[in-house]
């Protein structure tokens, strides 16, 4: 009964004091909406790989710095160690374009992988059509996900249909599986692993030395000792074969795969989450909800005088303090319940934007499933209690004889708390501003940094089988165009991951990156030589066993005179080579990592990329110039390989994709910071209006005594600016520590300059001042007679 009475009061209060309720409910709703969105994201991240029924029995084998194995490892271990019940090898498409042809149409299926037939025994990929026992038994069979099947075949039954891969291999569709979401390996289609034997030669399935490109997984029994098996596997493998220098084998549980801290070679083709981001997101979400709670606390306390009479009267009538506390808590729970409803609607509304921001496909529906509604209800009660507990105790402490006489004195304690809370809100906002600014600066720094090569105006194309035999023709044809100055072939272009190889110079063994290029590569990218010479078209003997090293490689081996050095353990026959030149260090990859030591070879294969430099030095250099050049490339492409659709990308754009994560982070942080400031300002606005209202008489008297409007505005704004200043002082060291830690992620980083702090101070001052000034100007220009009469 008392509950009903209290709810009535609560709702009538919400209705009557619309502005105040708006600030409370709006702030909380925004906070809750953001919280819901972030929790959706977190839940999605944490759900990776968990759909697998044998989740805790699956392990990946890793060797040294790589998570990709030669195919032979899976092969020789078969049936050798009793604890290994099943083995699955994958061959991810590794970033090559996967064009499938069905009838006369091409379909880009980027995540077509190869896997052993055991894949369906180990991982949980439910079939819609086909038999999991036999689907991948034969060479050239492929299982499609529902989405892929739909894309290629529409509503037709795809089982038994043929797909042409690379204009050469005919794959038969043998099954349809449900879409694979939230699996650390992106998969659109799975082809039988033994197909690779037919495509590359049977020995490629059993090779132990070469072809480090297969993520390999084991299934263990229910009760297993992973450490023990790991030792067993390692010694078994090392007894059978020499896997380079100091091979270390590790087993990593599927449970730890998605959030693997240190990414290994091969991990770049898989999905991985960053547990640090998740933690940061959760912390930020909680803080934003707290900011909204602070508004609630502050506004309720500020409005205490409006409620004082009610409190007094209820006490006189016989309400105990406990009953009053319950009443106020109920009110705040109701307010937060209302905020939850709006928060949900807002989250639903913002979801598409948020999905775009984090590149995800989250849906809110997962929150309607058990146990989330229960969690939300308890969350609302919890939130209501957190926001309401102090105001409840504060309001219920009023003594009736004073409040009923109208002598409610402003509690110094409450005022101090209110100020502290505002400072807290602004501190969080400032940390977010500094973070946003720093992320931007770092991003800008990385994008503008001198990479050691010229990434502008380079167009890259994917080489295909048809073009491979006509490489030189393509090059000659392209160079005929006056807008094209250079053309080079290479295995990898900047921004892509190169393969590792362990080599030896003299007594020293070390792992370096390797890249196969042609003699025009360095010129195309404008990379200068430090000493020695480049490969030369005139000297065919440079092919395959001559090496151009970068400075980092020279430093790694500690070579005083690198040119002429013999290198052992090379991947190509006869395994021996010689350094003929040294190029300047340049950033093959993003500025996250240091420049790796690289050996460049001149090999005719495997070339996957064509780099074309478009010249804009001529007077007619312009966008149409680029378009004309690309038009020309397309024309030649169509002539030389009509079977493949033309596709190209700009190197600077694909290189900058490496900073996608930071870009996303900066966008997310801008939104976070903006929301946090917005909510804090809502609160500040509310507080100012109440504080100004209370000073109405003072303002009136001051004006009567001759104070000018600017003096009054200054008087009223002074206090708030002081708070903002304190908030800055508190926030700066926190922001500095956190961001300094974040910047450690980058091998090359911009210092956290004083600029970002000054910016944050300036921004918060301006925003706070604008917020406050509306009320203070209004109060200052009011007619003093009105003010005094009001009192």
């Amino acid at each position, binding site marked *: 009964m008392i509950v009903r009475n209290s709810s009535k009061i609560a709702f009538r209060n919400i209705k009557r004091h619309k502005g105040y309720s708006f600030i409370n409910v709006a702030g909380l709703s925004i906070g809750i909406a953001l919280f819901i969105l972030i929790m959706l994201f977190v839940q999605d991240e944490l759900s990776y790989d968990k759909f697998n029924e044998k989740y805790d029995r699956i392990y990946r084998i890793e060797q040294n710095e790589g998570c990709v194995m030669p195919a032979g490892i899976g092969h020789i271990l078969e049936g050798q160690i009793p604890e290994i019940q099943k083995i699955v090898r994958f061959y991810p498409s590794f970033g090559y374009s996967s064009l499938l042809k069905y009838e006369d149409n091409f379909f880009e299926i980027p995540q077509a992988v190869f896997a052993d037939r055991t894949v369906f025994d180990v991982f949980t990929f439910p079939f819609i059509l086909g038999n999991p026992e036999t689907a991948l038994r034969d060479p050239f069979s492929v299982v499609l996900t529902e989405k892929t099947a739909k894309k290629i075949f529409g509503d037709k039954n795809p089982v038994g249909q043929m797909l042409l891969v690379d204009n050469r291999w005919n794959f038969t569709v043998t099954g349809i599986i449900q879409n694979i979401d939230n699996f650390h390996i992106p998969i659109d289609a799975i082809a039988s692993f033994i197909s690779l034997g037919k495509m590359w030669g049977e020995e490629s399935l059993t090779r132990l030395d070469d072809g480090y490109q297969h993520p390999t997984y084991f299934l263990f029994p229910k009760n297993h000792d992973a450490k023990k098996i790991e030792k067993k596997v390692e010694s078994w493998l090392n007894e059978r074969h020499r896997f380079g220098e100091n091979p270390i084998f590790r087993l990593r549980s599927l449970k730890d795969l998605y959030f693997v801290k240190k990414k290994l070679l091969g991990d770049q083709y898989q999905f991985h989450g960053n547990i640090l981001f998740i933690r940061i997101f959760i912390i930020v979400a909680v803080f934003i909800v707290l900011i909204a709670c602070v508004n609630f606390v502050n506004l309720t306390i500020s409005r205490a005088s409006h409620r004082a009479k*009610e409190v007094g009267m*209820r*006490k006189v009538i016989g309400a105990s303090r406990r009953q009053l506390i319950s009443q106020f808590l109920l009110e705040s729970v109701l307010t937060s319940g209302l905020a939850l409803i709006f928060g949900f609607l807002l989250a639903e509304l913002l979801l598409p934007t948020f999905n775009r921001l984090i590149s995800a496909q989250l849906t809110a529906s997962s929150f309607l499933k058990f146990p989330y509604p229960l969690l939300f209800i308890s969350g609302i009660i919890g939130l209501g209690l957190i926001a309401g507990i102090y105001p409840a105790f504060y309001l219920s402490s009023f003594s009736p*004889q004073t409040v*009923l006489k109208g002598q409610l004195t402003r509690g110094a304690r409450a005022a101090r708390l209110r100020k502290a809370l505002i400072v807290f809100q602004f501190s969080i906002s400032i940390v977010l501003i500094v973070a946003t600014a720093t992320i931007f600066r770092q991003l800008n720094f990385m994008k503008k940094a001198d990479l050691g090569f010229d990434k502008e105006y380079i167009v890259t194309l994917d080489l295909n089988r048809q073009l491979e035999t006509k490489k030189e023709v393509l090059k000659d044809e392209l160079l005929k165009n006056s807008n094209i100055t250079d053309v080079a072939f290479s295995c990898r272009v900047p921004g892509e991951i190169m393969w590792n190889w362990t080599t030896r110079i003299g007594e020293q063994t070390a792992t370096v990156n390797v890249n196969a290029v042609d003699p025009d590569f360095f010129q195309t990218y404008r990379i200068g030589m430090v000493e020695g010479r480049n490969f030369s078209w005139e000297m065919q003997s440079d092919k395959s066993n001559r090496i151009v090293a970068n400075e980092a490689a020279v430093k790694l081996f500690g070579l005083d005179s690198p040119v002429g050095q013999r290198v052992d353990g090379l991947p190509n026959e006869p395994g021996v080579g010689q350094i003929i030149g040294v190029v300047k260090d340049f950033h093959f990859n993003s500025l996250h990592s240091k420049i790796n030591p690289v050996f460049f070879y001149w090999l005719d294969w495997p070339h996957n990329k064509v780099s074309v430099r478009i010249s804009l030095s001529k007077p007619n250099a312009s966008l149409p110039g680029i378009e004309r050049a690309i038009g020309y490339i397309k024309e030649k492409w169509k002539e030389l390989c009509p079977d493949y659709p033309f596709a190209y990308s700009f190197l600077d754009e694909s290189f900058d994709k490496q900073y996608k994560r930071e870009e996303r982070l900066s966008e997310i942080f801008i939104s976070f910071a903006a929301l946090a400031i917005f909510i804090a300002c809502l609160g500040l606005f509310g507080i100012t209006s109440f504080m100004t209202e209370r000073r109405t008489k003072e303002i009136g008297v001051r004006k009567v005594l001759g104070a000018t409007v600017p003096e009054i505005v200054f008087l009223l704004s002074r206090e708030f600016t002081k708070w903002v200043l304190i908030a800055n002082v508190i926030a700066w060291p926190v922001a500095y520590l956190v961001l300094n830690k974040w910047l450690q992620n980058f091998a090359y980083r911009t210092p956290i300059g004083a600029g970002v702090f000054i910016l944050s101070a300036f921004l918060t001052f301006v925003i706070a001042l604008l917020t406050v000034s509306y009320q203070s100007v209004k109060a200052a220009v009011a007619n003093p007679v009105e003010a005094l009469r009001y009192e």
Partner: protein
Amino acid sequence: MEENMIQTKDLKKVYRTEEVETTALNNVNLNVQEGEYVAIMGPSGCGKSTLLNILGMIDKPSAGQYLFLGEEVGHFSERQRAGLRKNNIGFVFQSFNLIDELTVYENVELPLLYLGYSSSERKKRVNDVLEQMEIMARKNHFPQQLSGGQQQRVAVARAIVARPKLILADEPTGNLDSAHGEEVMRIIGELHEAGTTVVMVTHSPAYAEYSHRVIHLFDGHIVSENIQEEFKI
């Protein structure tokens, strides 16, 4: 001999701020018997309201004894005092102190809620008392929609709905014009006739005449007591 409902012995109330100490009540000895109608008079700041607040257990004495129904309550906890209050005492204030967010009906119902009456009992009692106060027609109005006299009738209705033994009225007519003032005094008189003990603070000698006994306070002391030969009804 009727029993003492209220008995104070050397009651003292001192207010302290950082710099000044103000004695609001000084050695007040007062007995009020059940069924009595006592008026307290005196100039502003003489301690009338303080005395009433202590009698109503809204405030605690600094020293001395206060016996309510023969029981010493000076040392009672907040909760004990709230319990005694809701079961025995009804308050009427000068400024009505109705809760703005509640309707007339809900305001009057409030004491019964805290006493834990059943819904049907509450309905009956509230309707009865609204009937008695002749404001039934206004039961769904909010306080701001009523005149001062009507508001005070609601306040009186709220004070008596739980049928308290004692009514404490703090200048109940202070905010009313004379016609409405008379009316409220008549109602209080009727309540007293029906057996309720009344202690009322007033500035008005005319209204004080409604009581059995007038106590004059000055500077925290009781300076005189007049027993009325014949009091108004």
